[in-house]
């Protein structure tokens, strides 16, 4: 526990840096944020009033400290574009992104594991080579393009699955409907990590096969399927860790995929906020993604070293 606590302490400067980046990025954007708030044909005192409301009249460091103290308390202010608390937007968006992210992670985990096992059991054969090529294809394919191709195929040509959004009209809460909507985006998003995971499964499977207990199991006369089950159980942890790490990647890829599918998640929110120069949303979004990413790395790191004491990262 102390180690985990230490890792968190170590992450504090990084988190502090993230807040600086989140704050600085929007301030190097061309144009003043006030333009997004008040039309220029407004009178000077109206302008001044609005500037004051948003605290834009204070010097940058003061604005930063104000923003930070509010942010630490979880208050990110009001969205300029949507005039609702940023919290509310983020809470909803992160929830939707998690639905997509978990679905994508699930897809890549299952597919990656199956392919990895196939490759591992057929080491050196054509199926092994196929899987490794497929893995490289995964990291070479633009996720948004894959999404477009799948929409053409499955939504337009075949009409099997919906092309955008999160649920059909009046079907909120219908899990099957949500599943139908999540399939294409999740595959598009989850295709990239499949290669990484299958490679990982293959490697750890081969490592475990070398270990003595497999021989022991064989000697015990266990069925092939039972042995495979043992193998998988032993190879599972590193694979889960990699999947965890890949969730961070999914966070990045979600910007494109969510935009294409009008998926109401964090990526789509950030993309539209960038277009609108909705500063409170951009800042909070970047801060959130950065923080999530750092925390995810810590957890994965920790799980890794807890499972395998040989790995000691600085």
């Amino acid at each position, binding site marked *: 526990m102390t180690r985990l606590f230490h890792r968190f302490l170590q992450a504090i400067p990084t988190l502090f840096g993230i807040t600086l980046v989140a704050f600085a990025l929007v301030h190097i954007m*061309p144009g003043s944020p006030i333009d997004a708030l008040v039309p220029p044909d407004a009178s000077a005192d109206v302008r001044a009033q609005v500037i004051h409301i948003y605290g834009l009249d204070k010097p940058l460091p003061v604005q930063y400290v104000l923003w930070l103290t509010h942010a630490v308390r979880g208050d990110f202010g009001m969205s300029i574009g949507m005039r609702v608390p940023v919290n509310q937007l983020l809470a909803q968006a992160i929830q939707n992104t998690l639905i997509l992210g978990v679905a994508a992670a699930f897809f890549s985990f299952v597919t990656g594991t199956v392919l990895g096992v196939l490759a591992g059991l057929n080491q050196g054969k054509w199926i092994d080579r196929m899987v490794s090529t497929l893995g490289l294809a995964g990291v070479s394919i633009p996720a948004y393009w894959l999404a477009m191709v799948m929409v053409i195929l499955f939504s337009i040509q075949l009409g099997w699955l919906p092309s955008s959004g999160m649920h059909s009209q009046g079907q909120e809460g219908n899990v099957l409907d949500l599943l139908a909507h999540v399939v294409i985006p999740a595959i598009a998003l989850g295709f990239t990590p499949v290669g990484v995971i299958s490679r990982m499964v293959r490697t750890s499977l081969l490592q475990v096969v070398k270990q003595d207990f497999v021989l022991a199991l064989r000697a015990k006369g266990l069925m092939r399927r039972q042995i495979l089950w043992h193998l998988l159980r032993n190879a599972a942890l590193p694979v889960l860790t990699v999947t965890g790490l890949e969730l961070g990647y999914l966070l990045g890829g979600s910007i494109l995929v969510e935009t294409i599918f009008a998926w109401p998640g964090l990526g789509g929110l950030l993309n539209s906020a960038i277009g609108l120069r909705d500063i409170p949303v951009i800042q909070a979004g970047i801060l959130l993604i950065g923080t999530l990413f750092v925390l995810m790395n810590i957890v994965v790191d920790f799980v890794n070293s807890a499972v395998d004491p040989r790995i000691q990262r600085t």
Partner: protein
Amino acid sequence: MKKWMRKSLSCSVAATVLSLLVVGCGNSASTPESKQGSGGTLIIGATFSNLPNMDVYPDQGYEGRRFVGNQLYDPLIIDNPNTNSFDPGLASSWESKDMKVWTFHLRSGVKFQDGTAWNASSAVFNLDRILNKNFQYYYPQVAALLTARTKEITSYQAIDDMTLEITLKEQDSFFPSDVTQILFASPTAIQKYGNDDYQNHPVGTGPFAVAKVVPRQELDLVPNKDYWRGAPKLDQLILKPMSDPATRYAALLSSQINWAEVPPTETIPQIKQKGFQVVTKPYPHIWAIVPDMSKPPFNDKRVREAFVRAIDRKAMSDQLLNGASIPADGPMYPESNLYPKDAPAFDYNLDLAKQLLTAAGYPNGVTIAVNMPSSGSGNMWPLPMSEFIQQQEAKIGINITFRTYDWNQIITQYRAGFSGPMADANGIAYSLASGTLLGDLETSFVLKEPQGSDIMGYDNPQLDQLVRQAKASTDPAGRDKLLAQGWGIVQSDIALLPVVHDLNLRVLSPKVQGLVTPATWFVDLTTVWVSK
């Protein structure tokens, strides 16, 4: 006037061809087989990237006003979407003897959706909210947006419970059309929620009321059964922000929506083939590039003419946009009664364009920067259109760098003009509903900010004179004649670089019935129903 004859002829030919090509389907929509029916859920895929805010001045341009503002609220006077004339709204009648003091007789028996009674005091509450800085509920954010409509008002008062009197600075015959833009909200709701939160709980007198808001995803509206013009036929109206044309089209094909604004133009033949209703109709609209005439190169009229002549607007309308627009020579659309029939046309002519550019002192061409929106109300398909223009201009040596911004940002840039954040731009691609309001000519080409939006630095004393006359005129026919003359001056001065007039393309599922194809940007959804 041989020239305009030819022009007018070509225009009418184009219009005929178009009506054969495209509008044919529109006609069928306006005359549905069964005129009787009601119910159903209408789901509109709109062009905004976000749900507009729902205060009395929604953002996201006129798209926000069309689908949110006009559905939740009513003005005193309604700009009839079908006849291009004024209809009584929350005022059952109005009069002014001198065009300076206007008396509005308010409609009786109208209630806001929360039960609050509509009367002179609620009208004054709303005017106080945007005009009286000492008022408790004065709201600068909305007040700023309405400045152009309220600039002439000096005072207002309730004469009696149902009579409102508004006094203007000077004679203004355009005032009724300004009044169509001022919407009225329930004072009870504003008092209850406060100015900032009100927009999340809007209450008006309009045909629809808010049932549910899912930020960024959808706005659910339900009909106002007590609507004073009669309850809308729909059971439910849902708005979905879909800024990308392809997304709207895909959603239509997969039945996620049954009404799509501007789908990709290349899909029009396919859409028809699949049995959807394609609706188009000319309306006051110009897709133009607003030039900065205060600095080179657009300070020279020859450059502006060269620019316009270099664009093959016919090819753009017919080929690039598959007939979803008609070529433009000036800001006013040809069907309007304000259309300047004798104004010069600027036919596509590369040689002439090149000559003009050389004569203006740019024999080797010139490089300019133009800001443009990525999507949004009335902007049609800005990306392919700007790229087409870019290619066309390159042929005579005008090299354009287009810079894309979100529509809401373009609106604020446009309002700020070329002195603000756009200082390094030579123009801004902008869609104007020019001619929607009587005051548009004055607002866009005579008045500089903060009253108006003559951001191009355009000045023509003759135009100013004409507008002043029209404004003071008490005779509507004479006023329109003067205004038409004024639009003619603007057209011949090329104060706006005209590209095309939009035809308001939208695609409806065959089940959507009862739509009266509007002749303006706005649309009356009370007549629409969706069959099972």
